[in-house]
């Protein structure tokens, strides 16, 4: 066997929430029997953005904020891969916010794990768009699930908490299954405390609320989900669990139609295509 990259050890501070996220991804990949070589983990820039080094798969370290476009490119060029994008709240909600909106809109079958710690870890603690208080401004924090609900086309919206491994594992498995089944964009926000700059374990532990456990909760209703999310938020609670799932068509399904052939594997030798090329050239004849 060829010796190749083996996952390295995380470099996070002891107690960092990101450990739990890594474990959940590793567990979920195992749970669905996903082969390492058909898996690609792409990460943004941040403390969160080193997670790909610790998972047995193809790994990629994107530009800050651009992990979703790169993941989309990978998925479209090779829809057979399990594509997992990961990154922080700065990466995803600040510099990457526009791409997130368009990922919800397009709905490619990519898993996106956003590790929310309310701050920029790697650059030493500046406030992120999910910081609950930003001085000296009056800004309120962004809610990624609410944002996802607002975009027609979104198909899987879940939240988990790094301090609650069982639910996190379950949500992660569901997300991978959603993507594996070609059902579209699986968004998982993990509340993942930064013990060094924003230790929220105590606070969050008391606030997370599993919607799945709420009586009569219907994750297939966009309107009900929005209402629940905002009602809980007003009560100071953090809704978790599989909050919304739909059957919106996936982005790559549209491409798969017309003679689509896994671009990454097309044989592009001239001999095969020369006739097509010639007939196109003929249209310019003069």
């Amino acid at each position, binding site marked *: 066997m060829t010796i190749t990259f083996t996952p390295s050890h995380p470099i996070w501070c002891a107690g960092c929430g990101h450990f739990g996220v890594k474990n959940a991804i590793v567990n979920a990949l195992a749970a669905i029997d996903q082969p390492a070589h058909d898996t690609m983990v792409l990460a943004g820039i941040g403390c969160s953005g080193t997670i790909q080094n610790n998972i047995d798969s193809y790994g*990629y370290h994107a530009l800050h904020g651009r992990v979703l476009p790169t*993941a989309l*490119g990978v998925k*479209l060029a090779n829809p057979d891969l399990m594509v997992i994008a990961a990154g922080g709240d700065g990466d995803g909600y600040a510099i990457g916010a526009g791409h997130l909106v368009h990922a919800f809109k397009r709905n490619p079958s990519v898993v996106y794990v956003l590790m929310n710690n309310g701050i920029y870890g790697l650059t030493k603690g500046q406030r992120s768009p999910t910081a609950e208080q930003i001085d000296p401004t009056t800004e309120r924090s962004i809610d990624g699930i609410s944002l996802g609900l607002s975009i027609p086309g979104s198909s899987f919206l879940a939240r988990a908490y790094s301090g609650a491994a069982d639910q996190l594992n379950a949500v992660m498995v569901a997300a991978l299954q959603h993507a594996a089944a070609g059902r579209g964009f699986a968004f998982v926000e993990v509340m993942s405390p930064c013990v060094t700059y924003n230790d929220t374990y105590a606070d969050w532990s008391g606030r997370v609320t599993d919607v799945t456990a709420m009586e009569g909760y219907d994750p297939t209703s966009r309107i009900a989900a929005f209402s629940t999310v905002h009602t809980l938020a007003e009560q100071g609670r953090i809704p978790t669990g599989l909050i919304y799932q739909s059957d919106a068509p996936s982005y790559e399904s549209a491409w798969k139609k017309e003679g*689509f052939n896994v671009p990454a594997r097309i044989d592009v030798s001239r001999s095969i295509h020369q006739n*097509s090329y010639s007939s196109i050239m003929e249209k310019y004849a003069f």
Partner: protein
Amino acid sequence: MTISAKLDDLTIMVAGQGGDGSLTVMNVLSELFGRRGYHLYKSRNVASRIKGGIAAAQMRASVISRGCTGDQIDLVVAFDQEAVTNVGADLSPDAVVVFDSSDKPLDRRNLADSVRVIEIPFGRYAVRDLRRDLFKNSMSFGVISQLMNIDQDEAEDCLRHTLHRLPERVLLPNIDSFADGRKFALADKIASGGYPWHLERVTRAKHLMINGNDAIAFGFMAAGGRFFCGYPITPATEILEWLQKHLPAMGGVAMQAEDELAAINIALGAAMTGVRTMTATSSPGFSLMAEGISHSGSAEIPLVITNSQRAGPSTGMPTKPEQSDIAMMIHCGNGEFPRVVLAPGDPGDCFKIGAAATNLAQRIQGPVIIAVDQAVAQDARSVTPFDLEAVEPHDGARMSEDALQAMATYRRYELNPSGVSPWAVPGTKGGMSLVTGNERNEWGLVTTVPAKRREMMEKRAAKIDHVRADLPKGIRGGDRAARVGIIGCGMQSGVIAEASERLNARGTPVQYLQVRTLWPVLDETAEFIRSCDHVYVVEHNGEGQLAHLLDGHGAFGNLRSLTKNDGVPFRCADLVRHIATFEANTMHGDAA
């Protein structure tokens, strides 16, 4: 224009308000001249707005193939006064102006007396007889066809061919309108001047009529390009549109991103899977892609980036040509990384370089930039058919699963003398690896150890030498013994070739080099410069960016910068006059 001498080389302009459809007149004329065997060079001059503003189409029809528009305009079809006023100074002395006098008679104040004007209220007639202003276009073609002594059948056939997409109920009144035009020409007093022109009928081998953007897209696809991601921007949008039309049928993907940052990063993602990938944009969009280009170089991801340059700075003049991003293309993106910048000179060259860039990107596993300007990108001209057989996709150091299995150890960033590491794409069993834009060790794990860092910088830099011999060579012409040289690229290619021809003909010996690889600067360029006493570097920008580039990389000191940055290409005649004058003075010792 002396009639007998000029009919082998004629420049025509059709001008009106943007969106009034007058540009279709030019399409019929192309059809006509094409059938007669002429070579064509077509350009447009439009404002960056949808309706309104002067929109003009220009066409040079010549018996010899030419790479630029003519010095002066011989025939103008104008649908309003502004068009004639604008073009006045550029008319040849014996030009003909066909003018739509529906609004008012032509104010010919800025026209030479020798210019002949034919006034017909096309629009008014079209509305009166056919109830639609748009038919004025076919009517004007009727007049011109008469003027050129084309018989009715041939002319009508050209018109029908051009309008063949129109439904019968629209086509027919156009034909009527055309016939009316011919009648006016016959009946009206314009007949008194006679019909001055007799077109040649030449035999010319089959050519293609195509613009540079389409040809780049085609070359990319022919070299196996199967993934494209872009964002609309003038004058690069045609590349996106061409590939959206053609790639899906070839099993590929061509998509419109939400912006340029997404475009280049989607492209990077796709490219990582092994599919040959391109993105394209124009100047402001290229600015936005700088971070991604640096990433392509650092993370070693093969990517072609086309920049169809427009006039800057910033939003600038979107529909005007310029070569003012040369320095940016070579130096943008933070830090140092290997890159190649190629500059095709015409659509035929665009095809070749589109293909070459696609292969080179695979071979250096990094960014290859195709630099064109709005003129090369959007002007259409007749070129010899593409040599499809000359293009074969090149895999670079990509490895099959079998090749991978045969290796003892696989490291994505393995050090080796070529600088290009063997590469197993995602999905390859046993090839798991890390790709990153950080400095790293061979496994792709982040490091800042100085020794490792130096090795990795050297590895990446080595790639350029690895492909140097295969970088597109320039095109040399003129008098190879001449001590005076001319250098240019892109939109200057046709102009410097023709200027060289004329200068040599009039006794000023010159040779020229059309540079096709801008970066790295090739030895041949340095040699060319050294072989001359001095060299004129012709470019469309203000700072002389190409001249500085060549100077800074060889300290020649014998370069003379000829620049222009007003959005209007150099005319061959200006170049000839400038160089001839300068040389005459030099010979007399007046200038240094």
